[in-house]
């Protein structure tokens, strides 16, 4: 079922025609995002920034939505030396807030808005959401280990000094020692935010996101 090709970002009616039947249909699906004004109101970006972001977005994904494959492809171009597919998978799930299996421009903008222009609280919240793979409100050691391994894979084998095999596991231990206050084996959102706010390094790093765009 072919839909009409879209004419651009600015449309009067906020129609979201999103039919994702099968792989073949993906090529002909056209997704029209919300209007520019609406997005400007919902996110913390200016109109010009939204225009630039949308142009880049549409260039890579003419159909208007990103599926996990494309997401992984794009992300791996930034980290050519390692295998970033696992981390990209977690990232994708974090961006895909409504768990539809695709990331639309609105999801993309919402995520970026929080990460680049949000408060420290919001950023930490987002990071917690990223780590909590099954979205149950708790970060277990297994989830953390998965994330850590994904990050180490992404950095690749060409690090200096060369990392040991169990470096991820040790890293997780350190993390849990720092974050898990009541030593119950899981980290809740409050423990996470509290521990991060106490850590100077993390706070300083958070400030760096201001001028990314």
């Amino acid at each position: 079922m072919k839909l009409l090709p879209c004419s651009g970002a600015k449309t009067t009616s906020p129609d979201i025609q999103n039919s994702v039947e099968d792989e073949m249909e993906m090529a002909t699906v056209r997704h029209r995002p919300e209007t520019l004004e609406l997005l400007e109101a919902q996110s913390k970006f200016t109109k010009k920034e939204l225009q630039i972001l949308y142009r880049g977005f549409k260039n890579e994904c003419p159909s208007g939505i990103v599926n996990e494959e494309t997401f992984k492809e794009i992300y791996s171009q930034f980290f050519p030396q390692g295998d970033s597919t696992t981390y990209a998978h977690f990232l994708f799930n974090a961006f895909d807030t409504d768990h539809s299996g695709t990331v639309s421009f609105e999801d993309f903008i919402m995520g970026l808005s929080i990460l680049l222009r949000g408060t420290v609280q919001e950023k930490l919240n987002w990071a917690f959401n990223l780590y909590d793979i099954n979205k149950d409100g708790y970060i277990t050691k297994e989830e953390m280990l998965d994330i850590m391994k994904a990050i180490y894979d992404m950095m690749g084998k060409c690090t200096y000094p060369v990392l040991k095999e169990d470096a991820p596991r040790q890293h997780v231990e350190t993390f849990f020692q720092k974050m898990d206050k009541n030593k119950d084996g899981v980290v809740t959102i409050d423990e996470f935010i509290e521990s991060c706010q106490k850590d100077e390094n993390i706070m300083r790093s958070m400030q760096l996101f201001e001028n990314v765009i």
Partner: protein
Amino acid sequence: MAAGVAAWLPFARAAAIGWMPVANCPMPLAPTDKNKRQDELIILNVSGRRFQTWRTTLERYPDTLLGSTEKEFFFNEDTKEYFFDRDPEVFRAILNFYRTGKLHYPRYECISAYDEELAFYGILPEIIGDCCYEEYKDRKRENAERLMDDNDSENNPEGSMPSLNLRETMWRAFENPHTSTLALVFYYVTGFFIAVSVITNVVETVPCGTVPGNKELPCGERYAVAFFCLDTACVMIFTVEYLLRLFAAPSRYRFIRSVMSIIDVVAIMPYYIGLVMTNNEDVSGAFVTLRVFRVFRIFKFSRHSQGLRILGYTLKSCASELGFLLFSLTMAIIIFATVMFYAEKGSSASKFTSIPASFWYTIVTMTTLGYGDMVPKTIAGKIFGSICSLSGVLVIALPVPVIVSNFSRIYHQNQRADKRRAQKVSLSYTQQHLPLTDCTVYSRSGQ
């Protein structure tokens, strides 16, 4: 791909939130873009047609003309646009390269014009996308071949040459009959004698009236002396010609191995062999067979006819198609002969006595000749016979168009080369008769 993906850089940086809380040390500062301009549109005026694009689009490839500061040389202060006095059609493809990261080759463009444009804009042809790369390479090869042909024909100038020794003059006379009148005379004389020889061979066998009391004689035996004299004269001429060519050839070894020289030798050998072994009853049978080889004199005409040479060259270049035709025909013949033999085994007085005997029927049927000397009598035989004739048409019809198109291509190439040569000759002729003081200006075209 880096071009479009660069727009996702903010996203990649934002994703760093993932490893920040687990990092052991603070994150390094992200590099800030100094002199970060607002993205602006620039206008590219190519021979009057205006193209517009973002500045950052062009800057994706900084080692090309449009991506570097080299384009400032073309900036027009009055109209505030970049003016290029080049082809706007090709520019479309070039600008699309900046936009999409893939360089396409439009099929209707001339290959050398396209190459020139690419060279002007500083783009290497190697980055042409896979979709168009085959076409580009094919056209480039064709062009190179055509240029080589031109250069070859140029290297045989018709103008005044430094004096050659006798051997080289003779060789040139043999290869290009129109260089001197002597060569032309020689050319026509040999042609005439080839024709005479072929006609005598043919007329020799015609029945020529009866000697009273005897059966009808062919002319060859009735006027044996006359025919022998004619034959001798022809062979004399051919021998002299062959020896002269052998003497004049720049590389004797290569000349001896060439096809034309082999034909020459085969044409005159039977006569000499016949002289050597006269009236020896045992081998006269073999001697008669040798006379068949005299018909090869007709191939000597290929020196005189370009069409014949082209045909020979085509057959040589289509050797694989011809081989395939032969192979598939052989397969089909064997299959059908076997089938027909077993189908006709039952019928009485069948002509299909063995499988090799059925070969004849199969060949005659597949080529749709249908002599009718062997016909199947059983119903099964007739069915298979009809299948055989239908498949014969198909199998033969398939490789033939390939051979035809090859012939056509080579023929047209030759025609083009001839035309160009004729043009050059007429050009040099007019130049010779114009009162020019400086002849080197028009000495050879293309130099």
